[in-house]
């Protein structure tokens, strides 16, 4: 099994956490995984991108046209990162408006839960609902429990389930 995934957003949206959850599931399942993340100045509200390669790879970077799945937390990044996607790749986008790809108003749903940053897990829930990723809901919840700070676990799981049952 091989899967190449991009997670795109702007600094402060929880792109890194979402990246870690996906990679953690791979580790839990005993599958090799590599991620590349954006740290540093771009995290101050600028465009950030994580790439995740699951399976037998040597480098975390994704070549143009090779990503199987794109999780976009910031719709305006679509023209910036779309070039990484395969023609048949699946795009999941946090957006209020209709348009390309599978869309969900993850920020709106997250706001309803009291924190717009939870949009990352709402979008992940949708990705699992669509059966696009290499793992199932149960495995995902386990990784969220592993990584989220104890007092936020339930809130994070709630956000994930909102996306899952959307």
């Amino acid at each position, binding site marked *: 099994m091989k899967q190449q995934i991009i997670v795109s957003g702007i600094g*402060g949206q929880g792109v890194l956490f979402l990246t*870690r959850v996906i*990679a953690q599931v*791979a580790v839990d399942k005993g599958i090799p995984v590599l991620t590349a993340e*954006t740290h*540093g*100045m771009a995290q101050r509200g*600028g465009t950030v991108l994580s790439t995740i390669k699951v399976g037998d790879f*040597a480098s975390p970077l994704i*070549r143009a046209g090779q990503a199987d799945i794109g999780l976009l937390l910031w719709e305006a990044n679509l023209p910036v990162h779309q070039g990484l996607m395969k023609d048949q790749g699946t795009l999941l986008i946090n957006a209020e408006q209709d348009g390309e790809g599978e869309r969900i108003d993850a920020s709106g749903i997250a706001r309803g839960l009291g924190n717009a940053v939870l949009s990352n897990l709402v979008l992940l829930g949708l990705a699992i609902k669509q059966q696009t990723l290499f793992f199932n809901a149960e495995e995902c919840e386990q990784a969220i429990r592993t990584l989220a700070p104890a007092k936020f676990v339930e809130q994070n799981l709630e956000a994930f389930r909102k996306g899952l049952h959307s």
Partner: protein
Amino acid sequence: MKKNIQLLMGNEAIGQGLIEAGCQIAAAYPGTPSTEILQAVIDRRETAVEPLHIEWSVNEKIAFEVALAGSYTGKRSAAVMKQVGLNVAADPFMRTAYLGVKGGLVTIVADDPGPHSSQNEQDTRLFCMQARVPVLDPASPAQAKEMIETAFELSEKYEVMTVLRPTTRICHSRQNVELGEPIKLERTADFEKDPTRWAATPAFLPALHRKLNANLEQIAQEENLQPLFSKGDGSYRRQALVASGIVYGNLADLLEELGLSGKIDLYQVLMPYPLNPQFADQLKEDYDRVLVLEETYPVIELLLGHSGAVGKQSGAVPKEGELTPDVIHQVLADFLGLQQPEEAPAERRGQRPSLCPGCPHRAAFYSIKQSFPDGIFPSDIGCYTLGMNLGAVNTVHCMGACISQGAGFYQAYHQDGQDGDFPTVVVTIGDSTFFHAGIPALVNAVIQKSRIIVVILDNATTAMTGGQPVPHLGIAADGSPTKVVEIEPLVKASGVDFLEVCDPYDKEGFDSLLKRADDYIRQPDGGVAVIISRHGCIMDRSVRSGQESFQVDIDESCIGCKKCVVAFECPALSMDNETNKAVIDQDRCIGCGTCIPVCPVNSIVKEAK
């Protein structure tokens, strides 16, 4: 026993490697992409089986020297920094090559090809070649961790310092990494005095230099550091690929995707310097053409001296920027005569970064720019570099440069000015940067009779790198209390007579202080004026919860002048193109209200929440 495999970032893997290798002194100054290495050591300190001193040093030179002395006592020690940090530590680093070490000394220097978060893309491997220091170039987080133990062993075997050179894509990659048990070395500090070495005068240096060169010849032959070879099936006769670092990983994946794995001879160089001359000879004999892929300067290519080598030196590989899989694809297609890759869509820039909503620096910059529209604004390295977006940062150079540059601007303008007239120079420097390299510059500015305003942006943290403690907090790396070293007495002791402190959220107060400072520097007995702009970093939760938060809105009276969006540039403010009025993104607004005085028609309003 079941293997303990965890998802670790490259920097965490390196930190874990330091603990496992029995490192007892670890010192660093934070800098992207290296910061999380020492943080990982801090987070894992309880797992160390022997005493472990960890420090966020005031700068990289100091970090290096602390670790160096630790090594003199026979203990394993490490200094950690980013590539430009090595410039700061260059002086002791260069001499250490000659004098050598006792306990293993590993300097971890993180390079930033791209660059993503640095002022240049210098190559530490080339620096090591000039310093004559062995350097290891890992291709993955897991390999970086393994190389820590290798680097310590090599250091102790030859009594030389060694360097591990990860790049951003190693530092900030995550991978499944197997954890090991920390080794117990049971060493006690034992500094053996030897002035001919530790205090070597020129008389002793030729012999030390000779010894170093002899060591390097042997190190080049070290069996476990020879290039790793994957033999091709003969499809590409007398041709080979040579790569190191993450570029090797990118190349390996690309070959796999193109169905070329195992078709062509492939080498991974583990130790670019000193490169085994026999390896170079062998390549000359076995191959007519060799493609060398490395970041960021042509170190291996230079050392190979192969007449059929193509790379950065020959121009076949781009000399600048990261060697991403797409760049390598093009280079490989050219080298092997493959089908040309489809033209990649023009790279589009995403959203630029900006100071956080509520950032006190924004308020300070806005006041500075408004107070002195024609001022000159040297600034420095940190979040506050983003003051560029507000037009309040004109120069950014290297740690601490802004104060000396400000003084230089003053001297150059002052000598031309009628009756000594000069533009107002307002320097902005962060608190951590001030401690790092600002103090000597401030003393110099004072004694050279400069007339400048220095604004120390004190947000009580090293914000850009994620909030490491600063000397005026009185907190050590492990969170324990330590002596507080305050900024104010340092400024006063530097000979500054005008020193004021103000919260930049108080716009009126801050504006009037800037005015007073400008009056002061222009007085007959004026000099350097220092203003400490003091408000905690908004990323610090306790700062957020400790300050009042309002419901901030824009009412109907907005005239669409865009001043708040363009000149103040808060990410929570944007223009609604349909109504041509400014709007506030309530998800991002933190309710600080610092934008309120910016509106010329008082359309930004606040209410208690």
